[in-house]
């Protein structure tokens, strides 16, 4: 073996993100629902052992006793049967039927969904058309029809309710399976020798389980209501057996003389279904992966900034935009992720500054922090300043920030398909971008939009302005985003990996275009990338980031030819050179430190080949090496 890189173990750590159970309890309504449901379940389970009179024992002398009568807390019904006992036994029946029907519907529906989604083709067509037919009937009518055919009775009501609920499971499960089927891990399982049945059971089913549980939790309440409905109509439980619906049905006739006979089962149904639904909503929120990531909180319009970061500007600003010791953190649960650790830099007018780093180095978060675009929560700007025209951007009013965003300071993102609105034509989106900042009539703005599209060299711009983003190729879409960034004569364009998603020949075109336009408009460019080739081609100066820190900054040519920080040096060596063959590719062993557990000293120490004890003892400061170059390494001077 020539490789020696034995992986550093990842420290097993509890994630700061709350688990499903914790999320469930954080939702107070769901917790309330759970407690209510548990209480009801407990009562119902111990019913046979409670000192209650027989629910079917009639005593005509004691008929229609009001509530709180002696020996009968909830009174008696028209045949003198104890209401409390009947309600508890009835709830037992209703719950048993509701839950059993749910389980039956879930098993059959999920099986249909799994088979239809996984195998597709004719099987999918046949099964799903069957489901469509079930869904074409109003379901209570269908349930009535089924009971009418099978005859009244509790078991038949259960079948009817299970059948009408199969489509909900089948459709939900099929939808998920169709996307899962095309995931690479399914292909991988197939190549590992697993057959279709094994893949369905052991690869796909575990991933569909949350969806089944969510659907169950949201339908079980319905099913109890439906059972009650059928029994109310006399089609479910047959006397003397009673469930909540049939008790309610019998009490209906006495509503004037003895309202409690109908009211109490109604109330119990209400409480039962309500608690199940509250819990169901909570379960859905806790299990839904999108909501788990914190999407339940609507992100604020700008990143939350601590008072320290909002302080007024002291002293003279450097260049067009200056960043001073910016510190952005993510507060997730009880953990703090220090994404950006006090980088300071500035951009001159008309300059292109490259920011290079690997994933997790904080380069994008730095760029997003400039105009408060980091989602809050969890992002917080803890300290530092972003200075533009002698204003601290973290402290300016929302109005001023809105004016700057997309105006004098514009962004271009990596994936134009997710930043352009899919339902508006590209022309309309350009018009909107211009009219948000300038007083222009729609017609004038449209004309300017066409000019902008011409400026970014989109052939046949007049026609192309009328198309939707998905009708354009990736390269053309990125041109549209560039046009949008240029729409309001920006002073600074912040481009976050604008060519990473593009093919190499398209990338070459986009880079050339960006360079030309920047020169024509005399705008500054902040170019975030992980590619040294792109930096060499585009940038005047480059800043290298590692673990949220700026480790080195300087003019591109000098820095690439003679890097002062060991990380820069080794990272450059890692890039496979297209012009020559290296016998062995250089690698950097290990992994970057986790930003929620950063070392005190040099953050690169664990992977550095010239590390000394001194490196780990205290934070290493960014040191000026020449007028233009700085590096964060105690040996940097010796290298230069």
């Amino acid at each position, binding site marked *: *073996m*020539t*490789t020696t*890189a*034995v*992986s550093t*173990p*990842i420290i*097993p750590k509890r994630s700061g993100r709350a688990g499903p159970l914790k999320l469930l309890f954080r939702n107070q309504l769901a917790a309330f629902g759970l407690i209510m449901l548990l209480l009801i379940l407990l009562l119902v389970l111990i019913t046979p052992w409670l000192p209650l009179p027989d629910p079917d024992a009639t005593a005509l002398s004691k008929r229609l006793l009001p509530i709180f009568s002696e020996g009968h807390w909830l009174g008696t019904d028209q045949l003198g049967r104890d209401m409390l006992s009947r309600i508890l036994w009835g709830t037992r029946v209703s719950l048993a039927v509701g839950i059993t029907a749910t389980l039956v519907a879930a098993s059959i529906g999920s099986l249909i969904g799994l088979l239809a989604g996984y195998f597709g083709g004719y099987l999918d067509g046949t099964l799903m058309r069957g489901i469509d037919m079930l869904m074409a009937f109003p379901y209570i009518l269908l349930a009535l029809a089924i009971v009418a055919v099978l005859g009244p009775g509790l078991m038949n009501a259960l079948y009817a309710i299970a059948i009408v609920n199969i489509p909900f499971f089948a459709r939900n499960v099929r939808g998920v399976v169709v996307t899962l089927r095309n*995931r*690479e*891990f399914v*292909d*991988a*399982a*197939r*190549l*590992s*020798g*697993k057959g279709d049945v*094994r893949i369905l059971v*052991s*690869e796909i089913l*575990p*991933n569909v389980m949350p969806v089944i549980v969510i659907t169950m939790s949201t339908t079980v309440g319905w099913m109890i209501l439906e059972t009650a409905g059928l029994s109310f109509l006399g089609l479910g439980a047959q006397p003397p057996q009673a469930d909540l619906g049939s008790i309610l049905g019998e009490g209906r006739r006495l509503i004037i003389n003895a309202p409690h006979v109908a009211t109490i089962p109604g109330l119990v149904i209400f409480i039962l279904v309500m608690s199940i639904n509250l819990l169901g909503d909570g379960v859905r929120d806790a299990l839904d992966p999108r909501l788990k990531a914190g999407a339940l909180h609507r992100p604020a319009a700008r990143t939350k900034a601590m008072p320290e970061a909002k302080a007024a500007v002291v002293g003279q600003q450097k260049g067009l935009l200056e960043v001073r010791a910016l510190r952005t953190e993510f507060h997730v649960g009880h953990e703090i992720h220090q994404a950006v650790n006090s980088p300071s830099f500035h951009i001159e007018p008309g300059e292109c500054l490259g920011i290079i780093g*690997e*994933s997790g180095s904080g380069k994008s978060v730095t760029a997003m922090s400039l105009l408060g675009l980091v989602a809050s929560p969890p992002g917080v700007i803890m300290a530092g300043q972003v200075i533009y025209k002698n204003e601290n951007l973290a402290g300016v009013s929302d109005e001023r920030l809105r004016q700057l965003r997309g105006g004098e300071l514009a962004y271009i993102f990596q994936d134009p398909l997710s930043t352009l609105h899919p339902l508006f034509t590209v022309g309309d989106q350009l018009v909107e971008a211009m009219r948000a900042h300038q007083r222009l009539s729609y017609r004038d703005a449209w004309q300017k939009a066409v000019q902008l599209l011409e400026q970014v*060299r989109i*052939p046949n711009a007049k026609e192309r302005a009328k198309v939707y983003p998905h009708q354009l*190729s990736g390269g053309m879409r990125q041109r549209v985003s560039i046009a949008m960034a240029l729409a309001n004569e920006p002073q600074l364009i912040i481009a976050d990996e604008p060519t990473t998603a593009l*093919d*190499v*020949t398209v*990338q*070459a*075109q986009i*880079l*050339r*275009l960006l360079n030309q336009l920047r020169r024509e408009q005399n705008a500054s460019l902040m170019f975030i990338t*992980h590619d*040294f*080739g*792109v*930096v*060499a*081609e585009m940038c005047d100066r480059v800043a290298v980031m590692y673990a949220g820190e700026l480790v080195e900054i300087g003019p591109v040519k000098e820095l690439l030819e003679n890097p002062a920080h060991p990380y820069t040096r080794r*990272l450059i060596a*890692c*890039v*496979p*050179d*297209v012009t*020559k*063959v290296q016998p062995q*590719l*250089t*690698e*950097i*062993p290990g*992994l970057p430190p986790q930003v929620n557990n950063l070392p005190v000293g040099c953050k690169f120490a664990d992977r550095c080949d010239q590390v000394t004890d001194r490196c780990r003892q205290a934070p290493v400061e960014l040191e000026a090496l020449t007028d233009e170059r700085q590096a964060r390494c105690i040996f940097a001077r010796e290298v230069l």
Partner: protein
Amino acid sequence: MSKLEITDLVKRYGGGKNLLRQELPMVHAVRGVSLDVKPGEILGIVGESGCGKSTLAKMLVGLESPTEGRILMDGVELSAPRKKINLKKLSQQVQYIFQDPNSSLNPRKTIREILSAPLKYLRGMDNTEREQRLKELMEKVNLRSEFLDRYPHEFSGGQAQRIGVARALAAEPDLLILDEPVSALDVSVQAQVLNLLKALRQEFSLTYLFISHDLGVVRNFCDRVAVMYFGRIVERGTADDIFRRPRHPYTQRLLDSVPGAAFERLPPESDAVILPDPYHPPKGCSFAPRCPFAQARCEEESPELTEMNPGHDAACYYPLDDDHRRD
């Protein structure tokens, strides 16, 4: 004998007629690819998105079946049109390494479960054999065996990709298809995986088919290279020939486009580049609309791969010469 021999492989999707006998659209993904891979070599396949390189890879491992053409491995037919593929048998010879290490590992399974599958179903090992082999595999890819009981999300991209490599090795294949195995990884980690792959090839005398769009990686990793454009191979030869003496203008265009490498031998491309339509492939050379040297003939006839120098073929009527100028 070649390890792998592909003849005139074609893959089309869709097509046929609907109930009203109207023609349905048909995508031409791979349009006649012939290749041979020698035992123990690394053949690189280079091309941009949509050129059919991933479809080609999926046909080689049996995840897709070809519309036309033949695939022979060690002289035995692996897959042919309208023949059911015996995936279990094929998977013991050919394995696949996916581009995105995280999406190719089931998030709800431990590494032990993931790696056990090929040992159990392809190699028929019992429990004790498997336990032993799992430890060996983890060691081979430089991961600690304690990691076996972790879930995929606990691993970084580079580690997850090494698990992907271990899973492929578990099947004890002769041929590995690597579909952009490092393009989702950071440069510093990319080298770890590439060096590991090189070492493993030596140790287990494997043959690699390495698909990538990163020319730097291909130059440094591959022995021979085939360049694909729009479902066809337009040039093939040793890595050295392809990178130093490209013959096809498209290959030169790719090299010119590498940022910072400063080849730039062709005039810059116009902004109105027309990409061929996969529903209606052109009659002539598909690169002709983008080619600075295209002549009338290029629009009319499609050039075949012809030998330019020994072991160096290009499909071009007007190839570049050694000084990167046209004849």
